[in-house]
């Protein structure tokens, strides 16, 4: 699971104040040289958020960096009632959406939206689920397959899935970041999860996970 420094790290110098809270306060007071230390735990999530929206590694790289520099420029606007990670992700999503709007034809965008249907999605595979252990992620080809499955989702499903399940924004925050309703987030999230499940189930059939240790108590299809 991704680290949440705000929760797990204590600051030995100031009991009751986490290391992250201390860093935020110091950067806000002008010790901006500490900003990298503050955001380092969130680099991956910031990059992943940009990639989910832009689907291009170079653009995501650039946008993630720009978003973090923007966060530095506006660090005094951060309020402690929000999670710092959420604040960073929201800035990143805004940056990525703005970049996509700049680079895409507005007409194409509206056509895409019309073509997206949110009708019910029914799962297609009902065989006993064969657990894919997290250790499998050590293998590059497994990570690659999972990334491809995610990339194959329509944009609207992929974005919601990444923000909620990978970035761990809550439903409300995801809705706000993408400018959509809570109900839409829930519908898209359900569909994204079910589609990915089917894609991963097919992955077993296609041998993606064939070298994984067979777990006792489960049976292959």
């Amino acid at each position: 699971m991704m680290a949440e420094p705000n929760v797990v790290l204590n600051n030995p110098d100031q009991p009751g104040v986490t290391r992250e809270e201390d860093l935020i306060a110091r950067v806000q007071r002008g010790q901006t040289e500490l900003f990298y230390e503050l955001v380092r735990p969130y680099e991956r999530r910031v990059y992943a958020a940009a990639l989910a929206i832009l689907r291009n590694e170079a653009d995501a790289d650039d946008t993630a960096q720009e978003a973090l520099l923007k966060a530095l420029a506006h660090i005094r606007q951060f309020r402690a009632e929000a999670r710092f990670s959420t604040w960073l992700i929201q800035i990143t999503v805004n940056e990525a959406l703005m970049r996509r709007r700049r680079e895409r034809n507005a007409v194409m965008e509206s056509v895409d939206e019309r073509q997206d249907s949110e009708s019910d999605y029914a799962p297609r595979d009902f065989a006993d689920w064969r657990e894919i252990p997290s250790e499998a992620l050590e293998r590059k080809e497994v990570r690659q397959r999972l990334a491809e499955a995610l990339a194959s989702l329509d944009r609207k499903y992929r974005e919601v899935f990444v923000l909620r399940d990978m970035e761990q924004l809550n439903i409300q925050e995801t809705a706000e970041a993408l400018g959509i309703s809570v109900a839409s987030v829930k519908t898209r999230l359900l569909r994204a999860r079910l589609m990915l499940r089917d894609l991963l189930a097919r992955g077993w059939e296609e041998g993606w996970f064939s070298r994984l240790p067979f777990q006792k108590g489960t049976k292959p299809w």
Partner: protein
Amino acid sequence: MVNDKTNGKPNCEQVWREISNYLENDLEPSLRDAMDEHFRTCPACRSVLEGTRNVVSLYRDERMIEMPAGFSRRLERRIAQNVRAAGRPRWSSWSAWMIPVAALLLFAGGLRLANSISTREPLKNEHAQQAHHIPPEMPVIVSAGAKVFHAAGCPFIHNKATERTITAKEAMEQGYVPCLRCMRKYMDTTVAKAGSGSEDDDDESTAAEIEKNEKHDPVAQPEARNLRQ
């Protein structure tokens, strides 16, 4: 596979529709209980639940995010550059043109000071000598019928209908000399901020010298005395 809805129990389709909310723990307790009951008796829906849970847990793993090579290094460098840049004064578009003007004023003041201390003789061409240190690329205003160049915004530009902008270097090459009016204003400010003396410190000899120089320099004003200490 799809159960009929009997006795208020959800069928498979209803379970699928709520399975995401089930994982989010975002259900009425009664519906959650009914779904738990359904999962106990329906292997297909149990498979859907387990698979969906597995998907969420796998993608939540940070190993799923492959960072581009050198991302951290680039970010650290950019932040450091940003921090260094923030440590320098920020110049607005308004003040951008004032920087070379302020430099010019400082230089002019220094020259006058040196003149008053070392030679005690008026310069043959004070304007021209001061012009040696003007940033050559600084945009300046010149106009027809005058041989003085000005900073943008100087109220003493004559014949404005004919004014044009050229670089300071071009102006000097064409024989223009700097306007001491626009210099003096900013020179006073700079010196006051630096805390280097005040009018109260002037002695009689300095005042007399100022008066003498003012006769020589038609654009010099009494406020310029701060610069001559």
